[in-house]
């Protein structure tokens, strides 16, 4: 149990953070932080991720099991499963991760759709479309997969040619040395001010770099699941250890991207959502003054 003083302290801290985040801005120095191609591709990418994750979970529901290796069809051992099981307490939702089982009734494996319980991996409020429909989910998935690939190609071409990747994202030696310091800053939720706010900090650089690599991995593992693409490029299944491994890596990478999005949005809210969101819309970022 949390003590009363502790709870009060947390509440006070949250209030401060909230004030800091939403405090009216004192007109200050601002600079052009994000150029148009980065801004456009950012928002298109955000839309793609919403639709790809939502439709991907609907597709996953058609066969809510993951395997390693070249094949897997329920007769093989799964390392992740969302199913419904019969127990003495009736039907329950069961989430299996390796040797562990969790009762996830109402959310994973067994949840209500229109007031009726259904065998359903992911619940209706998180999938696209909300109702279970593999063919429709595949249509959404491939539509946004194409947009993601084209958008990603534009972003990468721009970022390589304009040296955005090399200058702003690729961590240098100085960044690497600053990792412990940056970890401490993040733990204290201290955001850079003044000159330091003109650059991404090292953890930010590493996070953005990882997400670029993850999206690339998503596309490759996605293609590896295609029997047509596998015939055109037979080495694809080889690099991931088989089609079912590729399917699992596709799912794990998606989970990591969702984790990135959660941290990313949290950081935006903590660092001052208006300034941050505005900078990704108009390009201009106000340099926060140091709080004394």
């Amino acid at each position, binding site marked *: 149990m949390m003590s009363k003083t502790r709870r009060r302290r947390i509440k006070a801290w949250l209030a401060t953070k909230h004030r800091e985040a*939403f405090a*009216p801005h004192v007109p200050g120095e601002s600079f052009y932080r994000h150029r148009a191609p980065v801004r456009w591709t950012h928002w298109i990418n955000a839309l793609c991720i*919403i*639709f790809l994750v*939502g439709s991907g979970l609907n*597709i*996953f529901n*058609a*066969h809510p*099991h993951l395997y390693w290796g*070249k*094949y*897997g*069809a*329920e*007769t*093989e051992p799964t390392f992740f499963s969302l199913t419904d099981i019969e127990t003495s307490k009736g039907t329950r939702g069961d989430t299996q991760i390796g040797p562990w089982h969790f009762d996830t009734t109402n959310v994973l494996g067994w949840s209500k759709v229109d007031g009726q319980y259904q*065998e359903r991996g992911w619940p209706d409020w998180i999938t*696209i*479309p*909300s*109702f*279970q*429909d*593999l*063919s*429709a989910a*595949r*249509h*959404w998935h*491939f*539509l946004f997969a*194409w947009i993601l690939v084209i958008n990603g190609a534009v972003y990468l071409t721009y970022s390589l040619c304009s040296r955005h990747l090399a200058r702003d994202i690729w961590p240098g030696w100085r960044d690497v040395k600053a990792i412990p310091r940056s970890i401490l800053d993040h733990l204290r939720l201290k955001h850079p001010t003044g000159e330091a706010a003109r650059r991404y900090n090292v953890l930010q650089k590493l996070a953005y770099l990882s997400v670029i690599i993850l999206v690339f991995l998503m596309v490759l593992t996605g293609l590896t*699941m*295609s*029997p*047509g*693409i*596998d*015939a*055109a*490029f*037979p080495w694809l*299944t080889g690099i991931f250890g088989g*089609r*079912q491994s590729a*399917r699992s890596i596709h799912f794990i990478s998606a989970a990591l991207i969702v984790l990135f999005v959660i941290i990313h949005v949290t950081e935006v809210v903590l660092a001052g*959502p*208006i300034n941050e*969101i505005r900078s990704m819309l108009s390009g201009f970022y106000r340099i926060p003054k140091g709080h004394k």
Partner: protein
Amino acid sequence: MADMKLLTRRAAIAAGFGGAGFLLAGADRLTLSPGFAHVFLAVEDWTMATQRGLLYPDKLAKEYSPSDISPVFRANGTLDPDTLEYAAHIRQGFANWRLRIDGLVNQPLALSVRELKMLPSRTQITRHDCVEGWSAIGMWAGVPLGLLLKAAGLKPGARYAVFHCADNLDGEPSKGGMQSPGQYYESIDLRDAFHPQTLMAYALNGKKLDVAHGAPLRLRVERQLGYKQAKYVDRIEITDRLSHIAGGRGGYWEDRGYEWYAGI
């Protein structure tokens, strides 16, 4: 002034969350709208064109080694056509089963399974990928379809091979609710029909095809998903178009929204 700003900021954040909810509700609506279906169809054509380009002229599906074969090859869809006629065929060991090849051909054929087994055959160990996500590896043996089509001789205008099956499928809950029942059928174009790995298969893993896997004959069109691998085939109709058959989209699942070219 400061208060005003505070309000707009809160409104902006609320709009962000509200927008996300709106987007998801909107996606449901668009999914069901006939107009938006054209967008999906355009994407499907684009995907097919890309795959066809990458597979040019006729790259082979990866073939595996015997040690890769799945211990259990999962059977899906119809597991037994369960009609009186089919039950009779099982009792007779499919001795009276005929594969008819007709439509736009010079010489319509009706071949028994025994006759098919006397023709040159091909054996291949390939991976079967279900649209749901699972995979199984098995060794198929059968007659290359191209051989049969050459024997029948195609008339000008022939574009598709349509596979008529003996099973009536009610659909599966896993593929998005119970589907309307219908006679199973599938179709491929001539480029896939003449691909060297496209077979009328009569054996799986060295044994006669069993009922669950489509006895006595099924299509193997490697490089495409499981629902294209029609089972219980008793007729191949060569046509110039698909619009006159059942729902007009070229297959049981295609008529229920799935892609005709199932390369992904």
